[in-house]
């Protein structure tokens, strides 16, 4: 079964969508939409470093993104600048460093399109293992830190006063995001991972009334987008990553429809 490239693509994509759902919710709740962008920009540096040092790409991207997220936490404490300014500062300076290094190390040839958009159709069995094992670990850690992380998202001081440790949970959370970005690089690429984190979570917001519901719906919408997106990209021969995001955008638009009113209207007609 794993011989079929399409089947492998489905399995890897579904695994990724399951993790990005709940993580994406926290990104939306904490107004960190730009955070995924920042980390994915830093991924270029990770890839260049991996080639230069002949090192594993996923690990290298994970380490660089992890360092960037921790420096964000440090800068948040040390400066009075708002989050978006700090994220912009990190994103563009790290991207610049990556490009400078890439120019210096002229022997490196990087498939830039592959890096930006990924190639889900070329995942191998090893990639699937990394997504599913890595994803399971990420999800388990997220469940373990859910209470302090969520309470701190609602109100940091309240959580801290009542004996939780939301700051530690925040640090763990940013490392989880770094891990997901590292895992997803080969599959959807750095430009699209932010979309997969934010669009399903945003769509889910429109139809859910509790936090846990929103996290679960986000995963389901993500999985739906992967499945329909892969199918459509094969049918119409479009590039896969962007098609997946296109589908999730359509799902988002559908969730905007006034479902409650429509349902009530139906009942009225019946009665």
């Amino acid at each position, binding site marked *: 079964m794993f011989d079929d490239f399409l089947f492998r693509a489905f399995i890897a994509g579904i695994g990724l969508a399951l993790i990005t759902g709940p993580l994406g919710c926290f990104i939306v709740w904490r107004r960190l939409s730009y955070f995924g962008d920042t980390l994915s920009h830093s991924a270029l540096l990770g890839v260049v470093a991996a080639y230069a040092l002949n090192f594993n790409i996923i690990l290298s991207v994970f380490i660089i993104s992890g360092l960037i997220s921790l420096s964000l936490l440090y800068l948040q404490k040390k400066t009075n600048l708002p989050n978006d300014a700090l994220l912009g500062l990190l994103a563009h300076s790290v991207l610049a460093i990556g490009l400078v290094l890439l120019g210096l190390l002229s022997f490196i040839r990087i498939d830039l399109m592959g890096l930006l958009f990924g190639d889900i159709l070329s995942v191998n069995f090893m990639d699937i293992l990394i997504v599913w094992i890595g994803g399971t670990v990420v999800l388990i850690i997220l469940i373990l830190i859910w209470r302090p992380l969520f309470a701190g*998202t609602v109100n940091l*001081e309240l*959580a*801290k*006063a009542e004996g939780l440790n939301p700051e530690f949970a925040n640090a763990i959370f940013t490392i989880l995001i770094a891990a997901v970005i590292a895992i997803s690089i080969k599959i959807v690429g750095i430009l699209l991972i932010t979309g997969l984190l934010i669009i399903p979570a945003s769509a889910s917001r429109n139809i859910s009334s509790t*936090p846990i519901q929103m996290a679960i719906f986000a995963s389901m919408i993500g999985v739906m987008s992967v499945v329909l997106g892969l199918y459509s990209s094969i049918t119409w021969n479009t590039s896969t990553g962007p098609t997946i995001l296109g589908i999730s955008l359509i799902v988002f638009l559908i969730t905007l429809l006034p479902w409650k009113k429509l349902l009530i209207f139906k009942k009225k007609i019946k009665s």
Partner: protein
Amino acid sequence: MENSLIELKNCGVNRSAKWLVRGVSLKVSEGQIVTLIGPNGSGKSTTAKIALGILKPDEGTNAIRNNIKISYVPQKISIDWSLPLRVIDFINLVETYELNEIMDTLSITGIKHLLYQDVRNLSGGEFQRLLMARAITKKPNFLVLDEPVQGVDYPGEIALYKTIQQIVKELNCGILLISHNLHVVMSQTDHVVCLNGHVCCSGAPKSIVADPEYIKLFGKNIDPTLAFYQHEHDHKHLPDGSIDNSH
């Protein structure tokens, strides 16, 4: 004293070369209501945050007794619109409680009918009652209330202060209260600390109103012997507007 829950000794917090508060010493014991009063910007909330352990004092020490349950009603909370959060989820934020425990405190604070409402649809006063309900459900040993009745209607305010008195009795918990209502402060609390960047004066309500430092800040016209006006209802208004005569 062994029964002190928290004890601040000579605490100061410094932010960008400015002392927000300095030299604050105070103690809250079991079954005691300590109030902080003072003008705007006098460091009341900062002091409360030191007592809670949210802020580390830059000088002085804060001793919080081990293994005590702390509840906090902050002055301001804004819930992000992206968060779907119902009243019940908000109460279960830090700990998860049995539904009947939650219903009990929600009926004490008068918002039982809002259990499954989204918190962002609550009015300011209702939200304040929710903050109180959440804090009480925890059955704390130490409770910090930072202007707990702002935006609450007058009967509600009286009911909430009665609830505070009641939980002190029932749970024998210590309370640190920040309030601008001097009548409440003077008639219902055990110990008053008057802040203005530092502790101006502190003591029992009766002794404090005679203190020259207090008179300088608040004037002479607040008489602690003045009875706190009790708007006694012989009936209860239910949320749907009907009247409950059951007691």
